[in-house]
């Protein structure tokens, strides 16, 4: 069967299946199990209303449980076991973690991830805030914002190709076609550089790609937050003779502190999961390994599920503080 047709069929089955499930289960509840008539009308209606939410929730909960909650525990279990050739698992305790901790590649990935965690959220938020502030009151601000926002729509892989061209290197005697080398030579650089192979600094060249993508996100959120600042506070500062920089850093930034924190943590989560950029641009060579790509290597190249799962658990562990913080904030907001 042609996949496109299969796709259409899936949409039809999926959509009608969903609608059918919700409609029929409600019908069964109201007409068969607890009909709203007869001697127990009141009791029946109450019971039906107790069950109904779970009918609405069931498919979503199934998907959440099976595709996100269960894997967390299963990964934890896998990280504590080894596969026995031929099938089955044996319990090995923390051996996988020990093995991982003994690998220099893992520590390289950890070190790089920490760098990513500091640099990318900081730069994206800073640039986002800068653009949001600068474009706030200029006439072509919306056009500027749309253009800076645009990389959000571009895939990490597409972005990798775009930036590989920027970083391209040609032999010294040829014209440089990568704009970075062209500029480097133009401003007096002696030899064209192969930017992605310079250890330590090459990680920064990869980070630039993610900063380029995430700045638009930070800008959109922060720009809305800046507009939400009460005018009076700014007017009062102007009357008191504050200069524009004081207004920005002393009046505006403190008022959008929580939003800045939200942007920061959201980008942090993205950074922890970053895989495509490193995979496509260097594949972890030249000391650019990061955790997500290390994990992919272990799982699908080395076929070592134990160590792969252990490194996945490390990512989970790094995400957990933000997870707890988010949940607490959400609960606070609901009360």
């Amino acid at each position, binding site marked *: 069967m042609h996949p496109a047709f299969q796709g259409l069929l899936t949409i039809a089955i999926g959509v009608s299946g969903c609608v059918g499930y919700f409609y029929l289960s409600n019908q069964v509840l109201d007409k068969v199990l607890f009909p709203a008539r007869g001697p127990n009308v009141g009791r029946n209606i109450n019971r039906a209303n107790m069950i109904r939410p779970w009918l609405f*929730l069931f498919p979503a909960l199934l*998907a959440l449980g099976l595709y996100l909650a269960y894997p967390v525990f299963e990964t934890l279990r896998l990280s504590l076991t080894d596969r026995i050739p031929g099938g089955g698992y044996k319990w090995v305790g923390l051996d996988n973690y020990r093995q991982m901790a003994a690998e220099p590649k893992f520590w390289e990935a950890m070190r790089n991830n920490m760098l990513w965690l500091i640099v990318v959220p900081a730069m994206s938020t800073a640039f986002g805030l800068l653009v949001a502030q600068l474009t*706030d009151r200029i006439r072509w601000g919306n056009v500027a914002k749309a253009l800076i926002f645009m990389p*959000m729509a571009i*895939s990490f892989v597409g972005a990798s190709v775009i930036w590989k061209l920027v970083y*391209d290197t040609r032999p010294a005697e040829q014209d440089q076609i990568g704009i970075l080398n062209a500029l480097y030579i133009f401003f007096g650089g002696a030899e064209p550089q192969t930017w992605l192979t310079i250890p330590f600094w090459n990680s920064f060249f990869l980070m630039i790609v993610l900063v380029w993508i995430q700045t638009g*996100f930070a800008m959109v959120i922060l720009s809305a937050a800046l507009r939400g600042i009460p005018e009076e506070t700014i007017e009062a500062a102007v009357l008191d003779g504050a200069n524009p920089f004081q*207004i920005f850093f002393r009046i505006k930034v403190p008022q959008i502190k929580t939003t800045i924190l939200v942007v920061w943590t959201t980008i942090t989560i993205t950074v922890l999961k970053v895989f495509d950029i490193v*995979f496509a641009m260097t594949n972890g060579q030249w000391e650019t390994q990061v955790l997500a790509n290390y994990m992919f290597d272990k799982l699908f190249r080395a076929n070592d599920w134990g160590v792969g799962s252990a490194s996945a658990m490390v990512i989970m562990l790094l*995400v957990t503080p933000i997870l707890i913080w988010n949940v607490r904030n959400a609960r606070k907001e609901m009360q």
Partner: protein
Amino acid sequence: MNDIAGTKPALRWAVHASVLLLVVLWVFPTLGLLISSFRTADQIATSGWWRSLFPSEQNLTLRSAAPETQVLENGLYVIKGNLFDAGVTAKISQWGVSSRAIDAFKPGETAELRRGGEITVDADGNYRMENTEEFSGSRGARVFVTAELPPEFTLGNYHKVLLAEDSTDSMGKAFFNTLTVTIPATIIPILVAAFAAYALAWMDFPGRALLIAAVVGLLVVPLQLALIPLLKLHLSIGIPKGYLGVWLAHTGFGMPLAIYLLRNYMAGLPRDLIENARVDGATEFQIFTKLILPLSFPALASFAIFQFLWTWNDLLVAKVFLIDATGQTTVMTNRIVELLGTRGGNWEILATAAFVSIAVPLVVFFAMQKYLVRGLLAGSVK
């Protein structure tokens, strides 16, 4: 007057200039790839894309017509023509007939040919070869020119990448595969999530707050954790690598954001509306389909865009759940990574392939930016 922009003219100029600089920085990389996709392999390899917008001086190796076109004029064998392809207008500044002296002659001068005879080339590329004996061989004489060429762009790369049937460069199939992954993976989660979001927003039951907290928590669970357990699960219940697996995976992974976005939006709908409907005797199912769903359109659209962009641009989930050893079900992102590996230097193919895959999200982005922004604002945990 109460902003950085607008207090002093100098500051105002600084603001405009820095915004312009930032925009240029952000747009330039993409622009480079876009322009490169309209250039030939030679052009890309020999000059930076930023030069292609202006006439450029290039060293070219061209060939005269083959000896079979020669005619006899007054006892001389003559070959005439223009070195450039039809339609190309260029100005030659220097030329030569040997690769060691490519700038030996000026336009209008005449050079001796090594295999006998002589050649005259003018500034427009018109040449005349004369010989007292017959020209021999199967190919024309090589002429090295230094010429100023106008900007030149071609659609050839797109033709090759999209339409080449058997070629390994073809993206046509991957394009349709991507579409096949994306559309069901966008539509199905919306429906499932909408019902759940309504229950979480407007139905009262024990454990509701806990469930909402759980959804917020799952929002940040890295999907990396899910790869192996789900692959095992899929295999054990008989779902091989393929479309069904990838649709299910995307549905699961998109669920927390979908529920979160839709619940937040639905919870903000006016309470009176829903309670009046309840008083009027509408069932919950009717309230949901007739009232909530149409009113939630902006939130549905926001999530649809997110999910569309995310599934279209995804590499990891496709690699794990979809692409098998035959490679028949490859998606565009995966093709591009393969091209980066095997044809890292073929920028004309790479640039074009990348742009084919970027084009659709960009169109969606610019057409529906309003909903995307709205979704972002609602979706970041406050």
